Structures are given as C-alpha cells and as structure tokens.
C-alpha cells in the first residue's frame, strides 16, 4: 500500500515539476494570429499592424504541403485567436492533426477564427476524380493561388474581414493598413506585369505544380511538371519524355522550388537546353525574400533574367 502511494505521489510530483518548469506568461493584448505559411503571415502583419501578434508555422523554406508537424506548434495554436490558412486542402498533411491537438475551439473549422483565405477564389485544376492513381491530388483544386498577386488580394481581403470580425473597434485602422498595402501591391503588380511582358507565351516547367495561377496572370505558358503526379517522384521514362517535349517545344526555363532536390531539374535543364532557376514558393524560401513583395520581385526578376534573348 505504501509503495502504491509512493508511486502515485511520484507521478503527481513529476507532473507538477513539468508544469512548473514553464511559467505561463500573462496573455498579450494583441490579437494572436497563427498563419500556416509565411505569405499569409506577411499579409496579416500588413493589415493588422501593431494590433496583431503573428506567428507562422512555416519558416518559408518548407514545402507548402510538408511543414513538419512539430508539437511546439501546439501551444501556439492553443492560444491563437485566429488561424489563417491557404485552404483548398493545401495544408492537409499537417494542419488537421495540429488543429485537433491544439484543443482550441476558436480556430476549428467553420468557426470565426478559422480564416480560409481561399474564400472567393475560383480554383484551377479541380480534379474530375480524386483517385490516387492521379497522385496526391487536391480535391478542391490547385491551392497555389497566392503566387498570383491579384488573387493574393482576395486572401488579404479575407484576412481583413477576419480581423474586423474579431476586433470591430479597430476596423478603421485595419482598413487604413489594408488600403496602404493594396496600393503598394497594385503598383508592384503593374511593375511586375511590365517586367514579364517580354516573356509572354514563354513556356516553363517546374518540379511541383505550383505555378498555374502565376503563369495565367503573367501570360506565361506552364508546360508541365517534373513530378510524375503530384507527390510522386518522376520516373526515368517521364523525364525522358519531358526532355524530348521540352526540346521540341523550345522550353527555356526549368523552375526548381528549393524544397526539391536540385539533381533532376538540373539534369533536365541541361538535357533540354533550358536554364534552371530556383524560385521560392513563399517568403523566406530563398535569401532576401522575407516579404511577399520581395519574393514576387525575386521571382519576376529571376524569370526575366533567365530568358535574356526575349527581353
């Protein structure tokens, strides 16, 4: 009996020790926002200004579908007032489990704190069937719409609405911040469109299908992907076919996203006589791309530099 009591007390003491090791700080006054990816974090900071405390689950270098499911995210999500996500099942590999583990009813799906930025976006590449013979398809369509800066404005609008919904007394400030950011973004869009205009119709391939919205916005021709299917590595046969098609169609650019190995894109570019460029898919993906605007600057200028003959 004595030893049983001892065991029980030991367990309780250990639990208490763990609990006391980290003292909970007083909750901050700011609106606590968790964004899944760094572009959404950037937008939220731009609209929320000093009124928000934004944390991003991704640092920027991760694959948008492969952010590691770290337990350290759980306390952050547990405290969050708002969860800002891409939607279209972009975060299906890590977000549902993290949401469940967070035990935060405010940010669960269909609650006001669940801010799905895809609201109002008409998706591209909606699959006709969600059979896994087509790879790791996104049943709601391609989720990489934020690489189109015009569609990014819809995401910003959704974030603005969520912030206003959570803190209506700060509506004027959020509106001011949003309008200032949109003005800056609009000017940049014009600049980017002008920069990319000489590349109109230029074909390019990428490792994963990140770029259909980007291509459509800037008039580029998205030729194909190195992956055999979404989430499925290329077979030698697929690479062979891709290279011969690229040669036949004179595809000048191979885009490698930094999350994927360099070997295959580099070899394909060499064999097809194309130029390989490494482009981020969210801010922070490569150096000097800490914000969305800086990232888009980098993408546009790298693309333009990759095809000097067309300038």
């Amino acid at each position, binding site marked *: 009996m004595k030893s*049983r009591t001892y*065991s029980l007390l030991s*367990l309780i003491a*250990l*639990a208490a020790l*763990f*609990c006391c*090791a*980290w003292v*909970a*700080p007083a909750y901050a006054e700011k609106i606590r926002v968790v964004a899944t990816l760094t572009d959404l974090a950037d937008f939220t900071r731009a609209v929320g200004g000093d009124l928000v405390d934004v944390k991003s689950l991704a*640092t920027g*270098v*991760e*694959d948008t579908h*492969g952010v*590691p*499911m*770290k*337990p*350290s995210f*759980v*306390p952050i999500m*547990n405290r969050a007032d708002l969860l800002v996500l891409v939607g*279209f099942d972009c975060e299906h*590999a*890590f977000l*549902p*489990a*993290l949401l*469940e*583990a*967070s*035990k935060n*009813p405010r940010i*669960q799906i269909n609650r006001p704190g669940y801010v799905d930025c*895809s*609201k*109002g976006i008409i*998706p591209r590449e909606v699959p006709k069937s969600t059979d*896994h013979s087509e*790879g*790791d398809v996104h*049943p*709601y*369509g391609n989720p990489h719409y934020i690489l189109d800066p015009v569609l990014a404005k819809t995401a910003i609008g959704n974030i*603005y*609405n969520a912030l*206003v919904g959570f803190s209506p007394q700060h509506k004027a400030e959020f*509106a001011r911040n*949003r*309008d200032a950011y949109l003005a800056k973004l609009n000017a940049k869009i014009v600049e980017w469109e002008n920069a990319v205009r000489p590349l109109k119709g230029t074909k390019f391939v990428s490792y994963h299908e990140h770029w259909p919205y980007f291509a459509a916005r800037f008039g580029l*021709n998205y030729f194909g992907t190195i992956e055999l299917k979404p*989430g*499925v*590595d290329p077979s030698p046969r697929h690479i062979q076919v891709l290279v011969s098609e690229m040669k036949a169609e004179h595809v000048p650019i191979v885009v490698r996203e*930094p*999350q*994927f*190995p360099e070997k295959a894109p580099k070899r394909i570019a060499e064999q097809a006589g194309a130029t390989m460029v490494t482009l981020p898919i969210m801010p922070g993906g490569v150096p000097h791309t800490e914000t969305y605007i800086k990232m888009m600057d980098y993408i546009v200028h790298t693309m333009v530099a990759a095809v000097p003959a067309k300038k």
Partner: protein
Amino acid sequence: MKIMTALVTLCLSFLFSTTLFAQTLEDRLKALEETVEKQGQIIQEQRGLQESLRKQEQTIDEQKKLIQKLQTGAGQNNPSSGSDGTATGPLTPTGEMQQQMQELVEKVDQVAEAQTRTFPSIFNPAIGLVGETIFGYRGKGALQTGSDRPGGFDVFQRSVELNAAAAVDPYAKAYAVINATADPVTGEAALGVEEAALQTTSLPWNLELKAGRFFGEFGRLGYIHDHELPFVNRPLALAQYIGGESRTDGLQLNWLVPVEHYVSLTVGAGDQFGGDNPPNAVGDFRHGSGLNYWSRLSTFFNLTPDIALEPGISGLWNPKTDAQWADPGAANPPFPAVNGNTFTQRERRLYGADLVLSYKPLSNNQFESVTWGTEVLYSDNRYDVTDPSGSALPSSTVGSVGLYSYLTYKFHRQWSTGFLYEFLENEVNKQDKTFAYSPYITWSLSHWNQLRLQYTHTDHNAVSGLQSDNAVYLQWAWIIGAHSHGWQQR
C-alpha cells in the same frame, strides 16, 4: 497553339501506333482509315470545345463589364461608401444600383463557394482500408524460436483494417478500426474491433476525453498500428510487456498543459490493457482495483530548427491482476511456468521512458531525415507461485527490463533504411534473455504503397531454452481511400 500541339501529337501517336502493328498493307490501310475517322471525330470535339470556351469567355467579359459599370456608377454617385463596399443611406437610384451590385457580388461569391464544396456524401465518414501482407522465411521452427508463426516459408495476411472516422456532432468525433487478422495456424481470418471510440472536441481547459475501445497512450509505439511501425514487427518488449498494441476498453483524459512549452499529460482507466491481456473478470462486484490505470507525460524540445527531441514517461498499474485469471470462462488460463512452478500474476506494474531524437531539415524533410527512437520498459510484476503439486510457494516479484532502439535514415522521398536493436528479459524469469538485431530498408512507392525488407537475427540465452535463429521478412502495406496524417504518427 496548345490545342494544335495536342492535335499534332495525338495524330502522330495514332499514326505511329496503328501503322507499327499493322501486319499487312490491307491492315495498314484499314488502320489509316480508322485513324482518319478518329481524327475527324477529335477535331469535331475540339471545335465544340473551342466554341464552348469562346461563349464562356464572352459571358465572363459581359459580366465584368456589368460589374465595372455598376461599380463606376456607385463610386461616382456615392463617394461616402466604405472601402469594404458597405452600402449606406436610403434606397435612391444610386442605392438601388449599389444593392444590385451587392446582390451580384453575393451571387458570384455563391458560385465561387459552390465550386469549393464537395459531394452530398460529405456526411459519410472518411473511410480507408489498409492491407498488410508479410512474406517471411524463418530458419527454425516455432517450437525452437517460441514464435507464434511457423518456421520456414510463411505468408501472413497480418491485417486488413477498415478505418472510418467522422464528427458526431459539434462536441465530439468518433472513429472505428475493424481489423481482420489471419489465424497463425488455420489461416482463417477473424474479424475484430480493434478500435471504436468517441473523442470529445470541445471540452474546456484544454481537455480531451476518449471513451470506448482504443489504443491507450503508453510509450511511443505502443499505440501505433502494426503497419505504421518503422520496422516490420512490433518490438519484443512491447509484445511481451504490453501484449502488442496498447488496446483497452476504457476512458482516457488528455490535458494539454496551458504553458508556452508543449507538455501533454494523459491519464486513463480501462478494463484491460494490451492486445494479449484478457479483461479483468467482472464477477459479482468489481472494485476499482480490478481496472488498469495508466498515465503518460510527454514534452518536446526544438534543439535547432532541424533537430528535435521528444521525451516521454509512462506508467501502467493493474493492482489486482489475479482477477483476470479468475474468469470461469477461461478454461486454460495462460499461467506461465518456470522450473516446473506455476506463476499467477497478482499485480502488474509497468514503467516506461521513451525518447525520439530527430533530424528533419525544414527545407527538404520529405527527402532526408534521421530518426533515433528508444524506449526502455521496466516490468515490475508480482506473482503467486505454486509448485508442481499445487502447493503454494512464497510469492515472487520479478523486475525485468526490455528495450528497443532504432535509427532510421531517410535518404530519398521513396527510400529509407535503418537498424533496430532489441533486448528483453522475460517478465516472469528475468534470467531468460533475448537479443535481436534487425537491419531494414523501406521503399515507399507513394504515400499509399510501401514495401519493407527486414532481416532479423534473434539470440536467446541458455535459460530460455530457445534457439537463436535468422529470419527474413518482406512486408507489403497499402492504403486505399481516406488516410489521415495523424498526430500520433508524426
């Protein structure tokens, strides 16, 4: 341009494929005729598609112009309207236009939202099916190795698992895992409920309650299904001390400690704990001592952005296990025998400490990672002992240790390799020791199709009376339907 390219490619493909295999000139002509006919059909279809696209573009342009017109009108006539487009003031002609515009925007939003909706079957649970077959060759027979599988060549359909999960209501979700396992001797598949539990989703104070049949949280791999293990077989220590997967019929409460650091505390109570352990007999009246109690405390440290440490401790206590064997229905209770004496478990205690140290580079964790996992269990069991004549001997307390440690290196999105070391002292006779060494290599063709080849050398010491042996396993596991990236499998 794209359509033309597709057409040319298609034509060339048809020409090539049909002419290549035509055996005679007549065949070739026939094939060519067919090809031309098909091309005609395709061209017709493409023209229809082009026409349809043209009409759609026209409609979109018209709608855009209308919206622009309405916006211009609204902007010119009502400069005071908010930047979010909220209409203010009475319904003047301008107000009417604004209202029309609002209605139009709402309609467009509805259409856009409808596109993101899924099927009417959304209320059905997410359903997935997992299959797992083990092809094996073991150098010695079951009597010599103590295995429940025969020696020599063996094909074993270890599991066919049907998973279903869905929200019950705003307050809870439920899931079930129905498993069919082949009998080791007859090969007959027996259907069983592996898990069927309700889990709350909206309790306050960071609490979560689970009730029903589920895998109780003990250790790191105890509650992982066989096909999700990083190697082919469940470690010997878990198989013997827990009895396989940590299945229980009970209640479990998890608390996410409300501090900045991740700390998770779980406590539970259940009728049984572990797949091979029978539930405690109900009898006429059961006291609390007739149940199993368990607890787990785990935390997590980011040592660097790429390196993480996840330690945990667990405890299991069954104060009165002799009630298990008092079940009158158990005709042949599995009393273990050592040196001719029979051991009847009276009390069961199990302590565990586990650690996972992982290197997962953020930038390419799907292509490269290193995981080191170790779990040490201490089994502290109390036994009533009787000699072969049935006379009672002094009761015995056996404290035995079991552990496993593995290192897995992922070097490609599809490939990983690793090594598993195991050590086990028999829970009844700690002098009986087993060692096992298992290198393994895994080929994940995709998320849903995985092959694993494993070699296992098992050493028993003289006390065990068993013989050392070698085995080779090829595990083939697949998933169809819904699959979740669960928190426990992280």
